[in-house]
């Protein structure tokens, strides 16, 4: 019974702590719809995978959201046709590479500035590498959830708009009677309307064109509620699992692995995945292990934790299929392991 109460307290505290960040992320993601013409942003994103990955990893600096907040933003970006490396880079690096998190890490590790610097450098490096790896998957259908795949198939905003405009231009130049174009037409409303044209107009998200303010606000509200519902449900499940493991698994087991260069890094990677603590505050959590664990393993916790944990599996399932999530777990885990192990063995 006591265990149950402790578990409930952990569960509720995780939710209470995460809720503001979730709301911030969801509001931000919904307002992004409102203020930013994402199709323009998507068009500006470099097609080169390496540049895209780098830019994706660093735009987190403009958006101070932690890992509960960055998933909705990443999902939005992806659905607005931003290249996959940009979205993946953002997903992995944004929780770490943003002013609030860097400031918090600096507060915690003031006497070890190398930890702060290496956290940023390693996160950027790993996010870029993983994003470049994902850029080889040109067709996103096998890795994203079917609903997103369907959406992307029918709404390719950047390309579509471009094609549509050049089509219009051609039409104006040629001045061909529109009924002589091939296609399906709606007739009888005075002027014939080509079906494909109408479909494009209907399908493009309604934000950047001149809708009245009230309608825009209603869509922001609708989007906020929808993302709160979906991502909040996931967060609830993830927090429940994280709390259950914290109560049921013997912590000594994890802590006793502490001092060896390899076991400590491994243990910290596991702890990072299990504890699911928000990236804005995880440096204080890591600090509490500063005496018992190697510096490399603390870095492993700080770099890997924001990229992947039990709580975020739930959130990521809103975008990706399990197979892609496995890669998003395995690649950062192995890279973090490698980098921090080298640090442990040769530098610290």
């Amino acid at each position, binding site marked *: 019974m006591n265990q149950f109460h402790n578990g409930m*307290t952990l569960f509720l505290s995780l939710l209470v702590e995460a809720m503001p960040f979730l709301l911030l992320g969801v509001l931000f993601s919904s307002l992004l719809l409102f203020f930013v013409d994402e199709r323009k942003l998507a068009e500006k994103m470099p097609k080169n995978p390496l540049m895209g990955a780098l830019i994706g990893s660093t735009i987190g600096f403009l958006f101070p959201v932690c890992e509960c907040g960055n998933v909705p933003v990443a999902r939005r970006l992806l659905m607005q046709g931003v290249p996959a490396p940009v979205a993946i880079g953002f997903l992995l690096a944004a929780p770490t590479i943003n002013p609030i998190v860097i400031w918090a890490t600096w507060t915690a590790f003031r006497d070890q500035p190398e930890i702060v610097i290496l956290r940023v450098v390693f996160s950027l490096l790993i996010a870029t590498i993983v994003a470049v790896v994902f850029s080889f998957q040109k067709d996103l259908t096998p890795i994203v959830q079917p609903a997103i795949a369907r959406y992307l198939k029918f709404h390719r905003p950047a390309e579509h708009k471009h094609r549509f405009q050049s089509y219009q231009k051609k039409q104006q130049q040629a001045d061909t009677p529109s009924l002589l174009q091939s296609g399906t037409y709606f007739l009888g409303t005075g002027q014939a309307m080509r079906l494909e044209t109408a479909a494009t107009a209907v399908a493009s998200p309604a934000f950047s064109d001149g809708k009245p303010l009230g309608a825009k606000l209603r869509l922001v509200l609708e989007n906020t509620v929808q993302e709160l*519902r979906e991502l*909040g*449900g*996931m967060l609830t499940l993830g927090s429940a699992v994280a709390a259950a493991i914290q109560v049921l698994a013997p912590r000594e087991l994890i802590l006793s692995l502490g001092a060896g260069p390899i076991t400590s890094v491994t243990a910290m990677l596991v702890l990072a995945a299990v504890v699911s*603590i928000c990236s804005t505050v*995880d440096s204080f959590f890591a600090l509490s292990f500063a005496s018992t664990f190697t510096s490399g393993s603390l870095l492993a916790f700080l770099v890997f934790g924001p990229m992947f944990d039990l709580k975020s599996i739930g959130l990521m399932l809103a975008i990706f299929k399990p197979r892609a999530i496995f890669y998003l777990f395995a690649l950062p885990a192995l890279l973090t392991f490698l980098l921090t192990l080298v640090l442990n063995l040769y530098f610290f």
Partner: protein
Amino acid sequence: MPSNPNRRSSQIGKKLLPWLDVLAIGAWGILLLKYWLTNKLNLLINPNYFGLVIAAATGLLVVSTFKAKELLQHRGREMVTNIQHLSLFPPGWGSALLLTAAIFGFLVTPQVFASEKALQRDVSELLGATRVKPQAFRASVPPEERSLVDWVRMLNVYPEPDRYQGSKVKVQGFVIHPPELGKEHLLLARFVITCCAADAYPVGLPVKLPETSEQYPPDTWLEVEGQMTTEIIAGKRQLTIAAKSLRKIPQPKNPYSY
């Protein structure tokens, strides 16, 4: 013509589902406010984040109110469904989960962690006591006014126990009986929360008792007065409080340190 009951119930479901969103989001707003107003928030998270939580509660209530207003205004009319509607769950599950969690939040009072939770940790780590943020310690405070956590922070910066020999001590904390300590000692501890209850960790100092520790069952809150001394405990030289008086006190309103 008899109407199909399944179809009718699914139509009712369609009408009720948006209200489930309103309820779930509103319930979380109210729950967060309730934690704040009933002073339970400090059992869950560090006070640094109170402002954030209160703002979030307001935000959730605003979203829920606007949604409710919209539903009332557009009653009867078919709701415009968002184009980008994706869901892994069957409709309503996300909100149902959120609402269930909120209901648990209303029913279960957050618990103050006790010795059992502290003993889940490595006790040598408890005695090592090197886990507290050093920049927060205050050296200017006279020794008898330092709290347990102040002492541990101090020890963190200047670890030599002999430095404190003979200093007066008056601290409050709860009792832990780690198996490593004999009958003449107990561990006086407090939990420190840096972020939320998920990272609560105990810090403590051993107390040398004038009598046996059986008089003080685990989780009793004590105010201990005495002098600092050095003892060898579990094979390590360890700063210890030699107690002159131990007074049982009620659990403080704010049992955690931050």
